[in-house]
């Protein structure tokens, strides 16, 4: 299923090899990115590998993976940095070996990456806040279940949400954010605790796929009706929840697109073509009303 499909052709010699080091590997979002990358690679006749650490706290593991990727002398590297400063010396190393680096998912500081294919998570989270505030008529208690408190996406999606609410929705009271590691069961348990201690909670925001689904499960298990949920990312459970109305809506990025764009940009650079400095892969609000819209359906992953 992996990039190894073309391994047979690897002997050909002129097949280009792109080593992709992502922030994760096992989770849906990353599998969707991987899928996009593979599709694009197949189209362009390139070979890729796709790796990422077990959790988004494993920064050292990611740095080691990047080291190993460079050791393989790829034609280009795709990199989603957990902490871009930690990787800086390695990126220098890549540069000195003339291996172009394409950043994706989130930005890498400095000018080494030839381009960055990423989502503006803060803006995306603000969008989620805006929708939730509208759903609640601008008032009520709102809770946040976030995947973690130190990763850039975690912080941006929390802060983007919180800042928008503070600035635009004076009637909304925010409860302190809780962190469930993106684990569905743990996020569900947290949601139930939130409901128990705040029976009047009106809306809950889940900041990534695992958190959002956890919130849905938690509310179902608590047997509570009428709480508005907004989420992030997609995945089958989330899509189902939106279709049946349990979840009001969610922000989706375009993970498959991120994967495609990363590989496409890499190939361009390898061929010596020029690429824009930033590729905004965008985000969308989706809910019951537009979920079947082809433009939306295309960016959702099951």
């Amino acid at each position, binding site marked *: 299923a992996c990039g190894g499909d073309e391994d047979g052709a690897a002997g050909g010699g002129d097949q280009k090899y792109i080593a992709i080091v992502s922030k994760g590997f096992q989770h849906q979002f990353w599998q969707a990115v991987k899928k996009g990358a593979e599709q694009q690679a197949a189209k362009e006749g390139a070979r890729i590998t796709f790796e990422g650490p077990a959790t988004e706290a494993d920064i050292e593991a990611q740095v080691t993976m990047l080291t190993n990727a460079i050791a393989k002398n790829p034609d280009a590297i795709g990199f989603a940095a957990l902490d871009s400063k930690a990787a800086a010396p390695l990126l220098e190393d890549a540069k000195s070996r003339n291996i172009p680096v394409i950043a994706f998912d989130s930005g890498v500081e400095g000018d080494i990456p030839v381009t960055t294919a990423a989502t503006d998570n803060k803006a995306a989270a603000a969008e989620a806040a805006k929708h939730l505030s509208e759903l609640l008529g601008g008032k009520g208690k709102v809770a946040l279940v976030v995947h973690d*408190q130190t990763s850039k996406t975690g912080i941006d999606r929390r802060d983007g949400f919180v800042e928008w609410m503070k600035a635009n929705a004076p009637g909304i009271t925010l409860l302190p954010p809780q*962190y469930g590691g993106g684990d569905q069961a743990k996020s569900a*348990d947290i949601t139930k*605790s939130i409901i128990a201690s705040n029976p009047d909670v009106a809306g809950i925001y889940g900041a990534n796929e695992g958190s959002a689904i956890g919130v849905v*499960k938690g509310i179902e298990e608590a047997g509570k009706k009428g709480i508005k949920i907004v989420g992030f990312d997609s995945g*089958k459970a989330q899509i189902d929840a939106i279709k049946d109305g349990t979840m009001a809506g969610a922000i989706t990025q375009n993970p498959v697109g991120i994967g495609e764009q990363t590989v496409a940009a890499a190939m361009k650079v390898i061929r010596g073509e020029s690429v824009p400095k930033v590729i905004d892969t965008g985000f969308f609000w989706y809910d019951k009303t537009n979920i079947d819209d082809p433009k939306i359906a295309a960016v959702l992953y099951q």
Partner: protein
Amino acid sequence: MTTPTATTETQPVAGGVSLSLRDRLQQFLAFASLLVIFVVFSIANSNFLTYGNVLAILYSTVVIGTLALGTTFVIITGGIDLSIGTGMALCAVMSGVMIVNLGVPLALGVLGTILFGGLLGLINGFNVAILKIPPFIATLAMMLVAQGLALVLSHSTPIYFNDVPAYSKISRGNLIPDFPNAVIVLTAMAVIAAVLLNKTILGRYTYSIGSNEEATGLSGIDVRKWKIIVYTFAGLFIGLAGVMISARLGSAQPATGMGYELQAIAAVVIGGTSLAGGKGSVVGTMIGALIISVLNNGLQIMSIPQEWQNVILGCVILVAVYADMMRKKQT
């Protein structure tokens, strides 16, 4: 370290009545730390002691509790099982593959998953008992293998049980009104585990092996066989935990599981089972698991900032275990 403390059992048993009274007091006091924690939270926050919240606590204990029950046996033999977390994820995936992908009937699929867990345990048991690989290594290897296989078998995507609505009922259904099935399952498992540990030869040899493996072997008991049985038995619980978590989530999540082993082992050890083997109880394990989930829940209910929750959790566990040791010394 050098002070042998006489246990209650060294006392000549005066008579049926006084023994059972003593015993009952003992049993009751085993809950002391848990009770104290519970009462403190109840006083501190009025939202804590509600039917719904207590159920939520119990419900959140199910998966860890199930894993901890099987692991109790392994730890009493002096072993350890690190593969329970990712093994559970692999079992959940197997359940999905059988029931969703292959269309195996529900009951059969569930049974198959539990047996598949048993198979993982059997392999652990073989590696430990026959190849004599230290349990830590044998089950660490299984942890890694299971983690990988869960991704391979599921093609790294969750398997959803949407078309099998009955599956979720295993966890969320209410055979007893307003009481989730998962809690019934955990209770039943605890009873079964307690009976097996205290009333059967399996339990006896479990203690015996942990107490002195060599002497047990010299007494003519086939230590290898019984160790394999114990690991296999723990494996059945891994399988069941796989069913319970996927039923709860409505999907088999191949990437989950890592870290559950530490929590389950912690529950067992907080419950007074010694990692050196020979000592331990099912009641203790359930108390240990509950202490963890009550603390998690209570600290969240009290809206303690999350970075402080772990700090407090750590301190309370320390104090609870210390208090429990002091209590045992006294009686």
